[in-house]
């Protein structure tokens, strides 16, 4: 009878726990790592892709839409990028919801949705699945990297229970403990965007299984202010750009692997 309280999402166990929520969080800790670092002049997101293999058709990702056509990093609104860890199908549904919520705010108020508000919208939805019966919670954690005029650059994390919190640097998915302790050691309060990119890539290379990083395993994005317009500018790197960046940082593959490069 140990499983009596497992099958219902909305029933407390005698110890006062909601097992399905905890299982959802467990599912996320097996997903690919997603890393976010807040800098004073921007934010960096990086994510580890799990679904790879040379038979997988990546032509869509190679061309890359502005919204990113990868597996884990998405443009949620012109001022927010999201990184997801967990069940990809659930994540797609949440990304769609977030985009609608952002457009609804734009329609009502003629401004980009404040980042915290967008996180709240998704958390309200996620919380509903911890309370209404018969349904499974979303098996997804998200990182929101965004900009708004109220608090400038911001990084938020939300989990399947509908909790959210703001961070200077954090990580979700596999090895998030290792990543977070590395970030805690290396993060400095006045870090710039270039140092943040460097930090993210170094932490990523340590937490991922493979010895060399490459665009087939890594997604990468930044959010900065356009120097001309002072409007937020999201850049989700294309595979060729990821490889170029890794080469520049000295973390890429050696030249004999050049034929594997997508560029």
């Amino acid at each position, binding site marked *: 009878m140990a499983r009596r309280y497992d099958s219902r999402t909305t029933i407390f166990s005698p110890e006062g726990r909601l097992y399905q929520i905890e299982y959802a969080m467990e599912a996320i800790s097996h997903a690919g790592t997603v890393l976010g670092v807040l800098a004073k002049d921007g934010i960096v997101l990086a994510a580890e892709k799990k679904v790879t293999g040379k038979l997988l058709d990546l032509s869509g990702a190679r061309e890359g839409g502005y919204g990113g056509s990868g597996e884990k990093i998405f443009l949620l609104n012109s001022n927010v990028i999201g990184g997801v860890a967990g069940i990809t199908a659930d994540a797609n549904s949440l990304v769609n919801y977030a985009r609608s919520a952002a457009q609804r705010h734009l*329609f*009502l*108020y*003629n*401004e980009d949705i*404040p980042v*915290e*508000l967008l996180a709240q919208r998704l958390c309200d939805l996620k919380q509903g699945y911890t309370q209404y019966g018969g349904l499974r919670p979303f098996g997804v954690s998200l990182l929101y990297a965004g900009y708004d*005029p*109220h608090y400038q650059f911001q990084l938020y994390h939300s989990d399947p229970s509908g909790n959210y919190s703001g961070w200077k640097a954090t990580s979700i998915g596999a090895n998030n403990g290792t990543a977070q302790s590395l970030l805690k050691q290396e993060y400095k309060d006045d870090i710039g965007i270039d140092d943040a990119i460097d930090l993210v890539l170094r932490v990523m290379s340590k937490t991922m299984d493979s010895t060399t990083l490459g665009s087939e395993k890594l997604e990468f994005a930044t959010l900065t202010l356009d120097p001309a317009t002072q409007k937020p500018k999201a850049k989700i790197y294309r595979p060729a750009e990821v490889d170029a960046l890794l080469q520049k940082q000295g973390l890429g593959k050696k030249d004999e692997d050049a034929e594997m490069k997508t560029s």
Partner: protein
Amino acid sequence: MDVSFAITGKGYVILAADTTAAHSILKVKLDEDKIKELSPHLAMAYSGEPGDTVQFAEYVERNIRLYQIRNLYPLRPASAASWIRRSLADSLRSRKPYSVNLLLGGYDTNTHTPHLYWMDYLGTLTEVPFGAHGYGSYFALSLLDRYHDPEAPLEEGLAVLRRCIDEVAKRLIVAQPKYKVKVIDKDGVREIEF
């Protein structure tokens, strides 16, 4: 017969509205406040159908307050203007539209800039350096074309407002005796004895 003016200047917006409450050809009240303070840095002068005006202003006031309570920070002037415009546009297409014209003045505490929005009951929204509603607008707009200075300090802004009010008093047959004047700047909304 409502008359309202608004002027922006260096770091402030002035809103002015007459204080007459009229019923048919009678004046029933001479100290009616037709400028609603919506949030610490946002105020709105309203005119139009009596009843509609107060109802709509209170509806806006409470919704803006609700947004502030829910989201920890108030709506910025541009966003508030868009929301109010949408409310009027939706109302216009309902069975009984509100017949309300507005001048919305606000100070954006993020960018430290004053903003003034002109709105009418048809859902027209424009950001303007100065604006007016009612019969007063026929006199004031030409005056403001000549005398308005976006860089003027508050004293000069109030002097230009005084010109507008005097001109209306001089030329309009149904001139308004008294005005309420409110200023919105970095310190918030405050009333000025005029």
